[in-house]
């Protein structure tokens, strides 16, 4: 323990603490990181609420067109985010039905706004939330549900008391994957939200901007933070999987 302290103290004192101080004093950096974290948090929360019932429906029901629905949900994993962003931007356009209706009835313009980016981010990150949840539910033995039903328990009680507690690992993996993916969102945010500081400017776009301006010190700050977040998220996922298979 003493040895670890001996080695860590100079690293913190000479490298990490000054870097953190520089980051905190940089208002633009903090604003961009706050927007990024805000987007990632909201996206993850919305997707968790939508994802749980959707994963249940997909895991336990067979219906016509199920493969097409699954393919559509997974499209963001293989489609370039710019393609998705382009279509979302078209839908948001006041020249189209949805964009025009939102503007006429709610005075709401989704293109180049945080709400617009949030909706796009929810669509784009959906497979990262849905797939682990759906797999987790599908892998649970069918007789857990059936046993609960024969005990007189409703589908909702069974879902919350039996199924969800037994897929805790999948839920944490889904949250970590979605959050980490959102933190690094680039193409879709740039297409739908542009690059407006304090509103739609997220870390990955800011990093690209700083590199273009040859501002490598600030670029390094963004890169370092995103590297750490991704590393933590993946470590969480791997340690959960390891514990599950132990």
């Amino acid at each position, binding site marked *: 323990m003493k040895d670890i302290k001996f080695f860590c103290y100079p690293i913190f004192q000479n490298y990490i603490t000054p870097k953190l101080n520089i980051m905190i004093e940089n208002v633009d950096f903090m604003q961009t990181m706050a927007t990024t974290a805000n987007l990632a948090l909201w996206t993850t929360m919305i997707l968790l609420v939508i994802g749980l019932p959707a994963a249940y429906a997909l895991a336990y029901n067979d219906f016509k067109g199920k493969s097409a629905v699954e393919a559509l949900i997974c499209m963001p994993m293989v489609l370039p985010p710019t393609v998705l962003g382009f279509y979302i931007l078209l839908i948001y356009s006041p020249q189209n039905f949805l964009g025009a209706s939102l503007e006429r009835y709610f005075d709401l313009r989704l293109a180049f706004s945080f709400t617009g980016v949030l909706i796009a981010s929810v669509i784009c990150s959906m497979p990262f939330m849905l797939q682990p949840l759906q797999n987790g539910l599908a892998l649970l*033995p069918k*007789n*857990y549900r*059936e046993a*609960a039903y*024969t*005990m*007189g*328990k409703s589908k909702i009680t069974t879902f919350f008391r039996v199924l969800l507690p*037994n897929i805790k690992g999948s839920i944490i993996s889904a949250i970590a994957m979605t959050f980490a993916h959102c933190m690094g969102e680039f193409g879709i945010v740039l297409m739908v939200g542009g690059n407006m500081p304090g509103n739609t400017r997220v870390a990955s776009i800011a990093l690209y901007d700083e590199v273009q301006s040859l501002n490598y010190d600030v670029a390094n700050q963004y890169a370092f933070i995103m590297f750490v977040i991704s590393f933590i998220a993946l470590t969480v996922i791997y340690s959960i999987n390891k514990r599950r298979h132990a």
Partner: protein
Amino acid sequence: MNKLTIDVKKLMMTNSGERYLDFKGEINDNEFICLVGYSGCGKTTLLRMLAGLTSPDEGCIKYGDDYWYEHKSKFNLAPQKRHIAYMFQDFALFPNMTVYQNIVFAQSETNHDKIKELINIFGLNNLEKVRPARLSGGQKQRVALARALASQPRILLLDEPLSAIDWQMRESLQDEILKAHKYIGGISIMVTHDKTEAEKMADRIITL
């Protein structure tokens, strides 16, 4: 006296192709029935139809004056409303709950005295706080039996409950099952491959 009247037909997909299950029969209150037959003959399917977990293609299932299933009127009572207990081959104990919580979960309104009674009957006193993953096969079976009885079912359905248990423990667990049957004071139907076991335990053997 509540009688279980069964008249069902079901096309089943088995490893050796399609097979038609056609069963007619009556089971009286307090009877312990053993269902025997070769693999794939439909023993488990029949048990699942009684539980409401599988739908018959035709016919009816009646308990006393209440219909559980009637093909003509397309009526199929949900498993939740049949007041049965189903013991699965692998026991289906919930891994997220302790032994005590598994038994409590089966009750519609928690009755701690009843649970204590069941824990005493099946000798689970030292295992109340243990999770199913740490139990032996025999202990799991006793927990599953206690859980099955906790909801005070009218009918106890047992799907090969002793298949995963070694022969030394079988005998004592057969007694536990008979104890459970007496406790509910209703109908018990057990699927088994073992004819000797069926002869020893059953009031009546039905061969499919």
